[in-house]
């Protein structure tokens, strides 16, 4: 199968969906000729024109608000938020305006919009361009949240996001834009709420999201050499969450570590761990362990920054100890 980068995969998904549905359009800063600072959208303006690939002023609440209004009245906007860190600026539009329309109207109004943005530290970008903030939106009923972990997921999830009738936040790992993965030429969509078992195993389940799927897979390789069989699962969407697949795995392996690049405090890892504890407690041989990013603002100094995110070695070490029956708890 051909291999393309995550960036190309997103670009293809957008182009295909924009050809398919004339009510779709892209809105954001430097999305047209510049194709965004990450060049993910390069070439789209040539095909679809500046009417459908719209450069906005630096007004995040403003253009997210416009997307909500356009979606409410029959269009399918795709908003580009340059950095995930800017999500704080658009919280009212996203959480008060977009997320609640369907409910507040008793099912009469819907907001079929996509907000695509990114996450991920270790790019030496400092505390305001490195955060992984998906938990903020995952907390809000009415929003769906997708976290692609490779080019394959990026394309399939984006196409589903655009066709979904709800506001969807899709967050790409900005360090993965140039990573290649096999992506079929034929059209495919990845349904929301279907986790992907990346690797089967019997001793411990490693649940990783987004950037942490690769970390979990690398940890599994380390463990394999030591005779520990780790199952790696990528939930792909955290809202909706495919609890069944996670539970099934944990009931089989009886141990689990949840790895996510958001801060550990009150985070995605805690939510998933808690669901496993509630629903698979009697199958567990050890407490479900959380591994999130450290609870510090992301530091600039490369030496410090690298300490803040889970690594394959760290995951492997914790897995080893859990499997050995040691009592350990989250850092």
């Amino acid at each position: 199968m051909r291999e393309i980068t995550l960036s190309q995969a997103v670009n293809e998904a957008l182009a295909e969906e924009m050809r398919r549905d004339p009510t779709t359009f892209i809105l954001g800063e430097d999305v047209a000729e510049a194709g965004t600072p990450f060049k993910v959208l390069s070439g789209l303006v040539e095909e679809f024109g500046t009417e459908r690939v719209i450069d906005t002023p630096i007004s995040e609440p403003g253009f997210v608000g416009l997307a909500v209004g356009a979606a409410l009245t029959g269009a399918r906007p795709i908003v580009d938020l340059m950095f995930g860190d800017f999500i704080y600026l658009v919280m009212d539009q996203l959480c008060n305006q977009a997320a609640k329309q369907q409910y507040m109207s008793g099912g009469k109004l819907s907001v079929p919009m996509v907000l695509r943005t990114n996450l991920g530290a270790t790019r030496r970008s400092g505390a305001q361009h490195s955060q992984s903030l998906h938990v903020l939106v995952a907390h809000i009923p009415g929003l769906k949240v997708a976290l692609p972990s490779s080019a394959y997921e990026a394309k399939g999830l984006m196409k589903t996001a655009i066709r979904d009738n709800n506001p969807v936040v899709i967050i790409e790992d900005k360090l993965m834009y140039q990573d290649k993965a096999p992506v079929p030429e034929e059209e495919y969509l990845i349904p929301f709420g279907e986790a992907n078992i990346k690797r089967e195993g019997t001793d411990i389940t490693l649940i990783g999201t987004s950037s942490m799927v690769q970390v979990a897979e690398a940890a599994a390789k380390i463990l394999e050499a030591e005779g520990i069989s780790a199952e790696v699962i990528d939930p792909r969407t955290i809202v909706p969450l495919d609890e069944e697949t996670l539970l099934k795995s944990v009931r089989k392996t009886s141990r689990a570590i949840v790895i996510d690049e958001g801060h550990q405090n009150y985070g995605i890892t805690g939510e998933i761990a808690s669901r496993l504890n509630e629903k698979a407690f009697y199958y567990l041989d050890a407490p479900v362990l959380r591994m999130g990013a450290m609870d510090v603002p992301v530091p600039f100094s490369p030496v410090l920054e690298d300490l803040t995110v889970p690594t394959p070695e760290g995951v492997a070490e914790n897995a080893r100890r859990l499997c050995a029956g040691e009592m350990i708890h989250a850092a």
Partner: protein
Amino acid sequence: MNAKTRTKTKTSNATRKDLSKEDALRMYTQMVRIRTFEDNANQLYLAGKMQGLTHMYSGEEAVAVGICEALNDNDRITSTHRGHGHCVAKGANYKEMFCELLGKEEGYCRGKGGSMHIADQSHGNLGANAIVGGSMGIATGSALRAKLLGQDDVTVCFFGDGATAQGLLYEVMNMAALWNLPVIYACENNGYSEYTKTEEIAAGSITARAEAFGIEAFSIDGQDVLGVNELSRKLVARCRNGEGPFFVELMTYRYHGHHVGDINREYYRSKKEEADWKENRDPIIRFRGWLVEQGIATEEEIETLNEQIKQDAKEAVAYAEAAAYPDAAEVDMHVYAETDTATLQAGN
């Protein structure tokens, strides 16, 4: 009131040749329907039959009616926390409105929205909004959609003087002006945001802010329904013609407190000032006088009309009081919209 505000259009109670007798009577009817709706809502609240937060539109009827009578069902509006007036003016029915205020299943939003989130999509009302200024993006986005999809509807964004302090307004006016969007920003300047006078929170001129973006702006008497309607018709036509956006500041007054519980308010607003607006500038009394003067209706006919509306309201209130609450099973319905599974298949 902001003394520095310029007045570009004359406030006219003069004859309106473009206005048919039916149009004039409908405008009157709609204003009385709003006032009557609010009188009943206020009573429901005071009698403890209605819970929560609600804000009365009484006194500002000419704004909503003058503007909405220049629109058709396909045109959209976004409304505010003080939204009953916009909802009635855009064509909503009493029955579904009272049901919504009482949290009943037959309400416009199945009781899930309430007073501050009432929306009536069938008439283009995209909904009230409990975040001050929260709908400015929505209104502008609706106008962007119209332009992109080649549709000729116009969107009116209602908001208060207090909302002009929200940065969102300036972000979206900038984009609306850059892209010539068919949106009209209608600032209902009732002199107060909550318990604070406008002049204490708004520096300079409100219309000049829109003008800074190159948006044509007007400041007019919001108690004169004819004047409001005349300007609105012109601006709506110009919007359809690709000449938008526009900004209109409408000088008006709310008769009640900020919300229904705001009873003792002399610390921020004198009884004398309230009486002056009610006795000398009431939009309904003024328009009624004009209708009689122009021979469009007799005093008797108007009284009959008023009575009929009172009766309608009474019946709708009784209906809503007796109506069923939503079933408990509805509590987790409508969190997410359904997506047709066929749509999510490749090849479709």
